[in-house]
């Protein structure tokens, strides 16, 4: 009995030690990549800003009714750090709260996209034959649906809400992930080490858990970090087209309102520039970090 317990302990200790080494290795690589570090720093800053929005700015500045006394089109400085818009609302407050929505939509849509895509991709790749054929036809079907018309239709049917935007983005972008995952599963499945595992007596579940998933995960993770900026941009697009949640400020919505209010003609750069720069910076940060992650997690890209 005690022997078994000791074996368990030593196995777990060994696994922990190995994991520690792997993590240390990954962190070491990340630390050497300055660009990725900068990207990560930007993301952490934006995330903190979104998280602590109520403490950073007064949400009264978001509401047109509460902002009736404020000057309109005020330039940055003075009472308003980033000035005010055409209704006298604080641009700074919109920017900070907008980060919340943009980040939330970006992350939530990505999680959903990756989840659907991974499950479909693994099933299709590992089952083969008619399951694969059926799932892939389904994927193709979703892949060819024109995105914007669908988004407009869904938004008008489901109503304009933040979850609906997440839903629209995931429904239209999972096929790409599914194809990617399936392709990777198919190559891993043909690897000799999968044959070896089968010859060792491994079940399908074991092969998926121990060989397919670990070899697909880095790809999924990397593609997820690259999917976040796409989702953020999509949210921006939808909001800019007036399909966003009317009750929540987002960077896309800010841009739309600035455009509608004629901020460009009035040369009110403080109105649209923060949101625009915010989108570009976050998208860039995610992309840079995602690329670095891809390199760290994929041993084939990591030439020694």
């Amino acid at each position: 009995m005690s022997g078994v317990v000791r074996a368990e302990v030593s196995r777990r200790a060994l696994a922990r030690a190995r994991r520690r080494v792997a993590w240390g290795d990954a962190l070491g690589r990340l630390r050497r990549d300055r660009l990725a570090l900068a990207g990560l720093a930007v993301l952490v800053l934006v995330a903190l800003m979104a998280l602590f929005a109520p403490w950073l700015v007064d949400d009264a500045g978001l509401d047109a009714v509460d902002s009736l006394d404020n000057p309109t089109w005020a330039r940055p400085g003075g009472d308003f750090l980033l000035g005010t818009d055409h209704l006298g609302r604080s641009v700074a407050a919109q920017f900070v709260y907008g980060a919340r929505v943009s980040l939330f939509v970006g992350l939530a849509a990505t999680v959903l996209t990756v989840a659907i895509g991974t499950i479909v991709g693994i099933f299709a790749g590992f089952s083969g034959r008619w399951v694969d054929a059926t799932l892939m036809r389904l994927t193709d079907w979703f892949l060819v649906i024109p995105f914007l018309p669908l988004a407009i239709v869904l938004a008008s049917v489901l109503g304009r809400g933040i979850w609906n935007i997440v839903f629209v983005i995931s429904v239209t972008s999972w096929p790409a992930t599914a194809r990617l995952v399936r392709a990777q599963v198919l190559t891993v499945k043909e690897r000799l080490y999968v044959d070896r595992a089968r010859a060792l007596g491994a079940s399908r579940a074991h092969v998926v858990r121990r060989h397919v998933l670990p070899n697909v995960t880095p790809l999924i993770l990397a593609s997820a970090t690259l999917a976040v900026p796409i989702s953020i941009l999509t949210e921006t697009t939808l909001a800019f087209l007036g399909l966003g949640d009317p009750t929540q400020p987002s960077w896309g919505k800010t841009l739309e309102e600035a455009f509608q209010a004629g901020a460009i003609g009035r040369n009110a750069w403080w109105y649209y520039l923060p949101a625009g720069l915010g989108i570009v910076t976050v998208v860039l940060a995610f992309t840079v970090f995602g690329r670095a992650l891809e390199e760290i997690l994929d041993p084939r890209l990591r030439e020694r």
Partner: protein
Amino acid sequence: MSEHDAPIVSLRDVHVRFGRGASVRAVDGVDLEVRRGEVLALVGESGCGKTTLIRSIIGLEPVASGSIEVDGHAVTRDARSLRRLRRRVQMIFQDPTGALDPRHTIHEAVAEGLRIHRVPGDEAALVADALARAGLRPPERYVRRFPHELSGGQRQRVLIAAAMALDPAVLLADEPVASLDASIRGEVLALMRSFVDDHGVSIVAVTHDLGLAWNIADRVAVMYLGRIVEVGPTEEVLAAPQHPYTRALLSVVPETRRLEQQILHGETPDPSRIPAGCRFHPRCPVVASGEAARLGIEARCRGEDPTLTERAPGHTAACHL
């Protein structure tokens, strides 16, 4: 026949087919027995079906017809019996680099089989023991490394360690030294032989290298186009080959100088179009030289599929000659 003399693996008229409409007859009627505690070398050109044959023994290729028994148990497609089978039978591969998951450490690679079969005991100790037995000493130096940090020879030893950790009765080896440097070859072969001599395991080694057979095999089986054409004790088959194909194979091995080279033309014929009559007759030097005609057997070579007949005790060949 006592329990102990019964063959550990026996194949009866085994057929394995591939492709649309099962048109490719990769293994086309093989009868073969593997004895306990012997090394059997399965020799032939690529595409002759030798790798497919051993993969069918461990249930990696479904058998179209015929039967395979390992230690008295029939090999079936049933998941539970396959799992049991894959503890008694283990396999090592030609390409040790591809057979190791690049993301798994050496410890994980060796421990995988132990975990699958829930082998009781201290996993770390079992792994260390298996590595040491495969000549990777001290084992602590290897357990935390990844496959790409080892040499080709070391990787093959890891695979051997992982296979032998389960204490199998049969080890199937697919070209175990073909991808290794000449200098490493002998060490790996000696290791394989030691498992037979010290632990009584039986080995089926698939190879195109007759030198390997001479080095470690008790018996040699020669395979051509999905069929065994000659089987017998190594000394006999290599010193007094009965089948013209075996003779041709032997004559092109650079290490044998006694025979006049008989280079067969063309590659191995296509297993989706197996010739009628003796499957070797289109390339057979005996037919081509007219000797078969002189002996009056040419019509049979072209029209009649020869079966294995005994030429000496325990030595059979499938030839009309």
